[in-house]
């Protein structure tokens, strides 16, 4: 069955899936190398589960093809692909003990019991469930069930592990613990892991590469660092914590080899930043993280704003303010500011990303 075991890359070529007239997935194309941990990131309903189910063979594709090296696999039945899948709702077999759940894939592969037993115990030990191995899934907590689902998927030593929001049902603390565990399991297996999530923190902390989906199409593919520092679109910037999005008038634009420096005018003040490609039209949006904005002197580049609210955040204060034209601003401040006071806020140009304003 595991004829796929020694492949080098997984490649999706223009994969699409329609439900009636609705395009749940459009022309998905990317390539993943062995050993990579890739996150599929996007808001609810953007087609993440659909993509995963197409790769797992649980949902036929409407067009396009999926390849392991030069072997086409989208025509194979799910049971012939040999991928491990962790389901959004775990899908544990309720009538089998933890041990039997974990051993199910090996039984289906007719692995002799003497060889299967140590592999099952190893998978159970990996997720630290030795003490629960005899229990039925109904007798486990949500976090334990989730770990059984992972153990069951990895017990067959799959070349590809697919996880569909496996941590979405867990509390914040357990989620952090499980993140580390999933990363450790991935490194132990040396396989490809495709991890679906709508939580950018999870994607940033776990993945080697992130595929951002929106409305069934790829918006951006990049490393966590690339996505964090240079989101390709305003909506991704929003996702990545660029909470300030200030609409202004374009006043100057200079193209450098790698990027374009622009100036944006807000009333009588100006901000400078960078953009990936030349912005057309008179309007543009400057995206800035709250922690990258600081109070500057009256003569420096920046925008004037009136402080609306301020709250204590441990190491610093977090303030919201509004500009003369009504746009909201968020920034971190070392001091407790007076409500209603006017401050000038600036940001160094490499932290100001400019996008075309529609």
């Amino acid at each position, binding site marked *: *069955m595991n004829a796929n075991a020694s492949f080098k890359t997984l490649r999706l070529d223009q994969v699409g899936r329609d439900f009636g007239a609705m395009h749940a997935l459009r022309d998905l194309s990317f390539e993943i190398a062995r050993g990579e941990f890739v996150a599929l990131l996007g808001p609810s309903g953007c087609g993440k589960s659909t993509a995963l189910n197409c790769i*797992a*063979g*649980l949902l036929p594709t409407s067009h396009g093809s999926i390849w392991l090296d030069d072997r086409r696999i989208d025509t194979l*039945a*799910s*049971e012939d*692909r*040999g*991928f*491990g*899948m962790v*389901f*959004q*709702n*775990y*899908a*544990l*077999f*309720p*009538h089998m003990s933890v041990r039997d759940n974990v051993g*199910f*894939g090996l*039984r*289906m*592969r007719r692995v002799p019991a003497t060889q299967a037993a140590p592999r099952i115990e190893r998978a159970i030990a990996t997720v630290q469930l030795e003490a629960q191995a005899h229990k*039925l*899934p*109904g007798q486990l907590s*949500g976090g334990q*069930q989730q770990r059984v*689902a992972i153990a*069951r*998927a990895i017990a*067959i030593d799959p070349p590809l592990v697919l996880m569909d929001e496996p941590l*979405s*049902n867990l509390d914040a603390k357990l989620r952090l613990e499980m993140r580390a565990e999933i990363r450790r399991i991935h490194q132990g297996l040396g396989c490809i892991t495709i991890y679906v999530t709508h939580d950018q923190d999870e994607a940033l902390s776990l993945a080697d590469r992130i595929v951002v989906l929106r409305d069934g199409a790829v918006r951006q593919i990049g490393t966590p660092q690339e996505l964090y520092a240079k989101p390709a679109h305003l909506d991704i910037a929003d996702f990545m914590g660029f909470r300030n999005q200030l609409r202004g008038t374009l006043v100057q634009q200079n193209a450098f080899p790698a990027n374009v420096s622009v100036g944006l005018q807000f009333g009588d003040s100006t901000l400078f930043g960078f953009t990936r490609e030349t912005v057309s039209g008179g309007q543009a949006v400057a995206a800035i993280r709250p922690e990258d904005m600081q109070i500057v002197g009256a003569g420096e580049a920046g925008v004037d704003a009136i402080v609306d609210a301020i709250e204590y955040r441990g190491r610093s204060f977090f303030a919201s303010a509004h500009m003369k034209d009504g746009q909201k601003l968020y920034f971190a401040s070392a001091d407790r500011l007076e409500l209603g006071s006017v401050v000038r806020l600036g940001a160094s140009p490499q932290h100001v990303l400019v996008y075309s304003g529609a």
Partner: protein
Amino acid sequence: MSDAPALRTRLAARGFDGITLLVLPAALLIAGLFIYPFAYGLYLSFRPKDGSVFGNYLKFIADPYLYETIGRTLWLALPVTLLNLFFAVPVAFRVRLMHRQRLLTTILVLPITLGTVLVAEGMLNYFGPQGWFMRSLHLIGLANFGSFRLVHNYWGVFISLIITGFPFTFLLTLSYVTGIDPALEQAAATLGARAMERFRAVFLPLLAPGMAITFCLSFVQAYAVFPSAVLLGQASGETRVISIAAYQAAFEQYDYSMASAIAMIMAAVQLVIVTAVLALRALAYRGPAGGGKG
């Protein structure tokens, strides 16, 4: 005003509140229509004409014409029930995946609304000597061996029980089948299980308890066969089922005491079978058929 909670609150804490009162009509109805006649029948069965206590029961086990009805009824009810289950499971599995479930379910359920007598009449016309079915068989030369018949014998009753029992069995089975999380099958598939293995290792164990219940209900229904055994079978021969014996005792011999005894025996046989099946069910997994949270 005392410190103790009001009577009403105290009663509610013990499970008696306004809603409990709503159970009253149903409880009275059950007592009046079920418990009383049953108790009275039981009492009557021990008051035979000859004045002894167990006279009816002794007579029943001494007379082959009477005790053989048990075997005849079981010989009809058990295979029919098993066959219905056997058909219902795959059909339910298919229907579960269909988009036009409603339409198909309606068609399959139609025989329930027809009633046994109408089905029997239809079968007499269709399978009878002058019916289409037999005439077609004659035309293609398949029914030339003289004694082949599908009515007024065992098979007539058998077929009618299948027709009237299947929808019932099917509907129950469908509800159990749809209660199984489809993600379980997908999970089994990703782990390498083929369709047959998925059915055997995942569906069957989860379905077994429901199948036991379905079996009991379908069996009890088939065991009480009366109209079709009379209309489509041989009421004095191979389909002389136990309800016919009871009927004859009551309305041909006017021996209500004997009829009650036969009814009690009938109930006892059902009880034995149902208890046996439920005991087997107790050995199977009976928890929820979902795969986890969410």
